[in-house]
């Protein structure tokens, strides 16, 4: 009898302990409840706002706008980074408290939509025509899975190529005629590469922006030949164009740029003068706080064109969690995030281009020549295109195996064949 009582007490104590570890309350669904009456916590996973004071202030403006419709809902942000996005999402699912709003990037939507983690936005009226009319059409393939749309674009993360006019002149090249094809870029890069007396590269001729992996640069260079990485989820790189592109990258690494070259600030090397030419992302700060006007004036921007003029465009894409108990509120929050004023804030914070119709006239595009250039070039947008549903796995596979091919550890043709076989 006494033992039974003891065990019961122990069980009760444990229950109290366990329940006190969390708040113990799971929100009731607010879907169908009038917005003014809805209560609960909206959990938002968002890498678009840096967890700095400025980032938090910008996010609060979105929350304030959302509260005009849902005044009683609490918003709980998780300012993740793209590096830990998957961990955040997987652990939240495993813990049974998935996010209501999830902002991801190009290549995330298809894998998560195929696992039923994202909600089809068709029921909120999001169609390809709506995105064409109001947002960035180039990102439609990135938000589409099985002919349904699972995300709404927030900002476009566009990349261009930049050259240093002074370095070009010094090497006897004409900066007004930038090399755009892979072959011409290699010739120019070799002329622009500077070495010390021991033959070590002191200034790279071309920065491939591939410090940790060659997936994005391979995609970009391949697309410049008119060959998208995937078509309808099927691999399109295990061919002559793919092999030529990979061999070209191999011929550049440790020839015009040391493998793994990066700087402490993670800045594109051409902006800091550590490379004479190279890939840059979507914005540059020409003020004294940034690289300065003199450096800015020394830059010229152009796009790859090895048969097709292209601009690599990623982006921040907002989705609703399929297990959310506040789907209507989540959609309302996305609407608050996609208002032009909010998109301008996100674009400025991340040096990206707002994903609305007239991005070329956005404050971000007007703020610096690089953003203006990439905004004007969104019509040339390419990216991984319609990736297979195991893309999350393939991202890592690409990074590892392309590096092995570039460093001469594996045969490039076999690597491409292997990657094609692994895509499913």
């Amino acid at each position, binding site marked *: 009898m006494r033992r039974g009582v003891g065990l019961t007490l122990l069980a009760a104590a444990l229950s109290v302990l366990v329940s006190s570890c969390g708040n113990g309350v799971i929100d009731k669904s607010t879907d169908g409840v009038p917005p003014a009456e809805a209560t609960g916590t909206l959990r938002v996973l968002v890498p678009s706002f840096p967890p700095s004071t400025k980032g938090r202030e910008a996010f609060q403006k979105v929350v304030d706008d959302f509260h005009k419709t849902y005044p009683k809902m609490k918003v709980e942000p998780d300012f993740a980074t793209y590096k830990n996005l998957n961990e955040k999402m997987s652990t939240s699912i495993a813990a049974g408290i998935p996010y209501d709003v999830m902002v991801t990037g190009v290549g995330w939507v298809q894998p998560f939509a*195929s*696992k039923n983690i994202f909600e089809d936005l068709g029921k909120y009226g999001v169609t390809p025509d709506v995105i064409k009319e109001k947002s960035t059409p180039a990102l439609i393939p990135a938000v589409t899975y099985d002919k349904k749309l699972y995300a709404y674009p927030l900002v476009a993360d566009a990349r261009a190529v930049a050259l240093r006019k002074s370095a070009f002149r010094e090497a006897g090249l004409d900066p007004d005629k930038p090399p755009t094809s892979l072959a011409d870029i290699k010739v120019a890069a070799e002329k622009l590469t500077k070495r010390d007396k021991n033959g070590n590269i002191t200034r790279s001729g071309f920065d491939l922006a591939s410090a940790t992996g060659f997936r994005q640069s391979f995609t970009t260079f391949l697309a410049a030949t008119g060959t998208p990485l995937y078509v309808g989820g099927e691999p399109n790189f295990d061919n002559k164009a793919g092999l030529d592109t990979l061999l070209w990258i191999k011929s550049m690494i440790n020839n015009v740029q*040391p493998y793994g070259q990066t700087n402490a600030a993670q800045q594109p090397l051409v902006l800091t003068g550590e490379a004479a030419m190279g890939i840059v992302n979507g914005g540059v700060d020409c003020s004294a706080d940034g690289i300065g006007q003199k450096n800015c004036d020394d830059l010229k921007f152009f796009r790859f064109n090895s048969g097709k003029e292209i601009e690599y465009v990623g982006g921040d894409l907002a989705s609703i969690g399929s297990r959310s108990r506040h789907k209507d509120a989540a959609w309302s929050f996305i609407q608050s995030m996609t208002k032009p004023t909010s998109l301008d804030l996100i674009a400025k914070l991340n040096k990206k281009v707002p994903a609305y119709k007239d991005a070329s006239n956005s404050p971000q595009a007007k703020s610096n020549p690089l953003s203006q250039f990439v905004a004007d070039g969104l019509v040339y947008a390419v990216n991984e295109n319609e990736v297979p549903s195991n893309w999350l*796995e393939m991202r890592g596979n690409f990074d590892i195996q392309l590096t092995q091919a570039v460093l001469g550890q594996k045969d490039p043709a076999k690597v491409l064949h292997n990657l094609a076989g692994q895509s499913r």
Partner: protein
Amino acid sequence: MSTTLERPALAAPRKVTSSKDSRTLIRSQARAGWALLAPALLHSAVFIVIPVIAVLVLSLTDYSFGDTWSWVGFGNYADLFRDVDFLASLWHTVLYAIVVIPISMAISLAVAIGLNQKIRGLGFFRTAFYIPTVTATVAVATIWLWIYNPGSGLANGFLSLFGFAPNRWLADPATALPSLMVVGIWQGLGTKIIIYLAALQGVSRDLIESAELDGAGRWQRFANVTWPAIGPVQFFVLITSIVGTFQVFDLVYVMTQGGPGSETRVLVMDIYQNAFQDLKLGYASAETVIMMIVIALFIGVGRLLQKADAND
């Protein structure tokens, strides 16, 4: 010389009631024992037994955080042995363990012997050797990233004094894993030194003096007195080192992310990648089971070596 301790024979019960009292006493002692054990048992059940069972079950499924999953039997295990990343990770981990464990144990023992002498500044040296252990791995890794920096790092700066060409330590496939091993060895010294030091201070002075009187030299005293006396501690250090090196992750994550290519990819990194980046939790669970088996095998080998050493 050996001494046998014999349990004194229990006196025959004089009365039935005293036998009853004794049983009651044993039962109450047993209850007290269970009560004292309960927190540890509860902890083990919640944080060890249940997760282990969950991992075993998950390893037989294709669970990937989605709505649906299915049993795949031993399919994940079969796939693992065809997975070049897993095989590379396993090999790198085993190599890391084989190099790091003996070298760090040997250096630690040597340093501990040094610190066991009556030398000046003993407190300073003990603290200095222990600091890497209490420093966060992320901080340690960041400092070593600077040391290995090809352009402005200390390692290349030092080598340049002797006319050596700069090396791209972490970016070169040939030197990336050995560079990590050096950090691993350095970081693990502190704990081992403290344990060895405690063991060395427990070695009987009488035995050492006896050996000295018998004419044993310094090496003979170490080999025949000190070494056998610290045998159990050696085994403890070996086991904790095996577990520690097989679980190396943070160092690799901060310094190389497993690269270049997969040259420094280790088992836990591969498990992390599969579970939380590729979202293949079932597959990663199978990998975890394999890792547990490999650690058990290594511990088994260590135990055999310890037994052989003790018999010698």
